[in-house]
């Protein structure tokens, strides 16, 4: 009888100690704000992969069948539009080839291996996102095994959407440009008519839905729809020319000295399913 009661007491003590230790660990982690451990990332990746292949992918497959059926209805109209565009395509392709040849000759002449505008992409799909929606991050299905590294830019067909902030073997975490407190600023250039103005994208204003760029140069009058692209100067992203958005307004920051430009994002953030990781030529050469 006594033995049983002792065992029960012991078990209760073990439960109590493990509970208290886990609570202390959680509180300290919350206060310190540490990065997830390798074990946590591995667990998250495993659950996320199982969920993706067991639930999300089959459901997406069924959904896609219906979407494709509805898309077939619009094929005739689309075909007519595309046929018109096809006439211009041959012209653009020949121009592109001529320009590429010129580029190659210039590279040979100047002994430059690659330009900052040269890049290749690796396609990936979004595997998961945090349920609570506060972290502006998504997890994609390509990791370090697929050649993805921290700092690489990520884009959709409409423009840049973020950059890789963490990688594991089979997945990578992409921090989106809609993050209100970015870890790294993105160096950008604004094509304001004839002039090119440089700045840093360091902030997304959730209340206006626009990026905020701190200018490093002075700017005169801002032209309508001036294009904003990555400059490839500094930071971990070396690729130049990735579209970020169009400049919408110019103003002064809270300090009263620095000029800021508000930028309308080019990419849509409401349906992120497929993305492309940008591999610059320097990454490929390494």
């Amino acid at each position, binding site marked *: 009888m006594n033995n049983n009661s002792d065992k029960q007491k012991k078990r209760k003590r073990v439960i109590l100690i493990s509970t208290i230790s886990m609570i202390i660990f959680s509180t300290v*982690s919350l206060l310190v704000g540490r990065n997830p451990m390798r074990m946590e990332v591995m*667990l998250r990746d495993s659950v996320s992969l199982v969920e993706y292949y067991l639930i999300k992918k089959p459901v997406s497959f069924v959904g896609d069948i219906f979407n494709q059926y509805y898309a077939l209805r619009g094929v005739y109209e689309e075909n007519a539009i595309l046929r018109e565009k096809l006439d211009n395509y041959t012209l653009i392709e020949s121009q592109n080839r001529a320009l590429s040849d010129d580029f190659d000759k210039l590279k040979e002449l100047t002994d430059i291996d690659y330009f900052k505008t040269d890049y290749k992409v690796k396609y990936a799909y979004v595997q998961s996102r945090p349920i609570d929606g506060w972290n502006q991050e998504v997890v994609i299905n390509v990791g370090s095994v697929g050649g993805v590294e921290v700092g690489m830019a990520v884009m959709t067909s409409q423009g840049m959407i973020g950059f890789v902030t963490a990688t594991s073997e089979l997945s990578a975490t992409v921090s989106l440009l809609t993050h*209100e*407190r970015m870890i790294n600023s993105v160096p950008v250039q604004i094509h304001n008519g004839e002039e090119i103005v440089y700045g840093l994208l360091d902030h997304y204003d959730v209340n206006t839905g626009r990026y905020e760029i701190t200018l490093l140069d002075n700017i005169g009058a801002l032209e309508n729809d001036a294009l904003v692209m990555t400059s490839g100067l500094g930071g971990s992203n070396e690729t130049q020319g990735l579209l970020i958005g169009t400049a919408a307004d110019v103003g002064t920051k809270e300090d009263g000295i620095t000029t800021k430009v508000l930028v309308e994002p080019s990419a849509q953030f409401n349906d992120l399913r497929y993305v492309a990781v940008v591999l610059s030529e320097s990454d490929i050469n390494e």
Partner: protein
Amino acid sequence: MIVAICYTIDNSIAFFLPFDFSRQGIVIVPGIGLMAWTLINNIIEDDRRYLFATLVGLYYAVIYANSLFIYVLLYCLYAFFGRAYMKLSRFTLFEAMVVIGLTIFVQEIVIYWLMWITNVTAMSIVTFALYRLLPTFLFNVVLSIPLFYLHKKLGFEGKKNAY
């Protein structure tokens, strides 16, 4: 196990629900896992209640919330209130909806407050209330109806009515 399955359902719903990362539209956070925990909290023995709360909170934080450990403390808080005010009560549908709604409400407010003080967001309280809190609250309260009947059918209720 039940809560883990519910989290998987939550994650799948979240994956297929339209979600605008630019936060210029409605944001809905499914909370079936939290609802299930709120309902089964009553049937867990006293000495194991906080251990389960901690484990469930840890699981959610690590797998689904980017290791944000406030969830562990929140789940312990729910366990504490479950112990202090609900005992082994059997809910009616209305009571279950009120308890679940209140839990979702508290969680959303606490997380918003945490994000606000740590400068993760500068979202105004009106935008938060209109575009996130209210839709999430309504969505989950509606979802709580089938969950309540499922919970009843599977026999996860407490054995006596404390009231």
